[in-house]
């Protein structure tokens, strides 16, 4: 059970407070409701580049990091297809420094051209380091546009290509800031050893006079239902052949989301999973195989991936995966298997709540999904899933027409 209080400011900023008096620290998490899905298809990678610029100084504070480090604080941020999230951890009695810094960069950035020029270079090096200069780094650059024909999930957060980052201008930066980085598009979460009244006072003091922006209306193109299977092959200088299969699945708020997640666990989570036992251990088709879901807010992907053993063909490996899927649909799922994946999901949840920061982030994410108290309902929802629910989703999701396959290897 994660307790929390909520309030909001007149400018639209939504605030969540979670108290934990057992730790000497406090977390300030600021979630902006903007991700790579909100980008112009000709200017991809921008949300993430923008995240870098948020550290390049704001209207009244030339440097973001040093004043925070000076009071013993630390911070970081990440960009996903759905959100951009900034978080600060400080010794609890220095919380106000986090308010000061975070509110000033919501008020206005420095918009320094030098910062833009350097961070473009840094992000291009990040692109190379993570996506180009290591084996399999570009798998999702290839796979996303195969699986999504229209929806902006078709590009990764780093962007489609380096030129999009190179071409970013200061005008783009300002436009993005005033469209998305307004209080009415953000959720502020304060967690840790804090007092509610004090948090209210500090929030009003530092965020209260930031003007709200025009409401942002998200109008994303809907991905058409996939009606024929897609298959592609990519050759790269890698030592091991791999296969990726993706299937379109429901959105995060859908009632079928958790059952589909548990379906992926039954097929491919851990060494006792069906795919691992059958295809790695018994038949020795793969050296490793997994199933998981992308976890996105809008309609996401169910993913099966495997490293194929030397001497086994792509087609054969693919066929073996499909055989396991058919077997699951035909023979059904036994109760022990369902209990197992529920226990795994439950204990993963308990372990994830050990630390303060994930608790704060989960609260903010739940709020974004429409109900902050979702954090406390997950366990109940996991327990309510039946083998029928799982099977129903297997029949709906894991079908050939809904599948995109990538053979990636030598």
């Amino acid at each position, binding site marked *: 059970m994660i307790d929390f209080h909520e309030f909001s400011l007149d400018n639209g900023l939504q605030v969540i407070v979670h108290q934990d008096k*057992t730790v*000497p*620290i406090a977390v300030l998490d600021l979630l902006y409701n903007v991700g790579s899905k909100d980008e112009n298809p000709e200017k991809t990678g921008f949300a993430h580049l923008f995240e870098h610029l948020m550290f390049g100084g704001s*209207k*009244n504070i030339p440097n973001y990091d*040093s*004043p925070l*480090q*000076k*009071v*013993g*604080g*630390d911070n970081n941020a990440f960009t996903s297809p759905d959100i951009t999230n900034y978080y600060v*951890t*400080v*010794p609890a*009695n*220095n919380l*106000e*420094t986090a308010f000061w810094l975070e509110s000033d960069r919501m008020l206005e950035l420095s918009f320094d051209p030098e910062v833009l020029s*350097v961070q*473009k*270079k*840094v*992000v291009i*090096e*990040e692109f190379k*380091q993570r996506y*180009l*200069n*290591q*084996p399999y780094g570009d798998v999702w650059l290839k796979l996303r546009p195969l699986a999504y024909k229209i929806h902006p999930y078709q590009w990764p957060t780093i962007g489609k290509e380096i030129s999009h980052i190179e071409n970013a201008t200061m005008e783009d930066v300002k436009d993005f800031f005033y469209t998305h980085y307004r209080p009415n598009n953000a959720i502020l979460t304060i967690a840790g050893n804090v007092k509610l009244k004090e948090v209210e006072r500090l929030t009003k003091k530092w965020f209260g*006079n930031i003007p709200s922006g025009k409401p942002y209306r998200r109008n994303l193109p809907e991905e058409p239902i996939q009606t024929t299977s897609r298959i592609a092959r990519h050759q790269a200088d*890698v*030592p*091991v052949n791999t296969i990726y299969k993706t299937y379109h699945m429901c959105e995060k708020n859908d009632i079928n989301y958790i059952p589909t997640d548990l379906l992926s666990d039954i097929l491919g989570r*851990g*060494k*006792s*999973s069906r795919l691992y036992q059958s295809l*790695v*251990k018994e038949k*020795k088709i793969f*050296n*490793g195989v997994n199933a998981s879901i992308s976890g996105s807010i809008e309609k996401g992907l169910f993913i099966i991936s495997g*490293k194929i*053993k*030397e001497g086994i063909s792509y087609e054969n490996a693919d066929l073996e995966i499909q055989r396991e899927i058919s077997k699951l649909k035909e023979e059904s799922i036994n109760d*022990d298997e369902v209990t*197992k994946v*529920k*226990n*795994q999901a*439950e*204990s993963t949840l*308990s*372990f994830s709540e*050990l*630390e*303060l920061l994930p608790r704060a982030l989960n609260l903010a994410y739940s709020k974004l999904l429409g109900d902050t108290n979702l954090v406390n309902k997950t366990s109940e929802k996991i327990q309510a899933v039946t083998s029928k629910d799982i099977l129903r989703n297997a029949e709906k999701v894991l079908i050939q027409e809904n599948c995109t396959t990538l053979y990636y290897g030598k």
Partner: protein
Amino acid sequence: MLDRKQPPSFSPIQDFKLIKAKSYQLDNQAKIHVVNAGRQPVINMQIYFKAGRWHEHIKGTSFLTAKMIPEGSLLHSSKQISQKFDGLGAFLEVSSGYDLVGVEVYCLNQHLEKLLPLVNELITTATFPEVEFKGLKDRFIQQLSINLQKNNYVASAKLKETIFGKDHPYGYATDIELMEKVQHAEVKSLFDEKISGCPFEIFLSGQVEEAHIKQVNKELGKIPIIKPLGKPSLPEDPLTDEFNYYEEKPESVQTSIRIGKKLFPKKHEDALKFEVLNEVLGGYFGSRLMKNIREEKGLTYGIHSNMVFLHNGSYFVIGTDVKKDKKDIALEEIYKEINILCTQAVPEEELNLVKNYLAGSHIKSINTPFSISEHNKTLYFSKLPENYYDNYIKKINDVSAEDIMEMANKYLKSDLYEILVG
């Protein structure tokens, strides 16, 4: 009117007492170190054996020995073992490090009792089925062939080889040829000699009640410990005078840089002073290297320096992946920053910032039962005084700008190995 240019006032960060693990002996004299803390009903149990790389007779065996432990025991097959753990939502991890082999269980505390008999079985009667060994070795070699394509993996391995020597247990590089040669019998024999029936230590943390300690004693305290540990002989010091190595890869768009050298143990009198020096140079996001090479020149996504403390040897390393055609500039700037630290005192404001940052990181690193246990483990294995963390912030604050310059001159001025890949 709110003055946004004025930072809010802040308080200095105070030392606080680390919760100390309570240590007991099981019936068989094995030591158990218990941290009872936290609000979630979870437990982490770690069992350590002196069977890491340092204790191998044959290179490459320790890793496979550890990974074979859950692959079959006297009464359970590999499949049954993973079903048992997964079925209860528990996690079993085996690790093999430079010094220790660890068998680790994460579970809800109510399930510990049900898992302990199986844990006993694994660490005493693992059967090392040949067919599982073959599969495991194949999978490992395949993964290794992927890692060997990563410049940063190759560069890190090469640095360790250069610092410690090709035949040193910390230094030898794990390559495919070496792993192909490892035999089933050699791996099994490491288990028989260094794990089964050998002394072990347990770290138990989370919501641990008396009953859990009793359960552990009942199952793991009955294991007869019959084999004394032989002390492995120390390999000869292999110092090389080849300080520069460059493996060029025409297809690479980035070059991995590693610069480093051997270091003293964590309990050495210079350790804390050096820790502050390391932080200034490359230990945090505001470090001099990060500011210069990433934030001013945009040559990299990141650059860091670290100290790595092992039981029988330690080292210092600067690591980064930089734009290939600018690698010489990056190198020049790295040495320039080191030279500045050797010749100019760190300004007071920067030094205070770094000290506060270290103090804050310290406070933030001790917030879960597992991290409290980790700190206790470091105290124990690094043979640090029991109050080491209780006055850590004071000790950091006592480090002066002169100390840092002295450390830079003593340890970083010369004899640094430089490895480039890509």
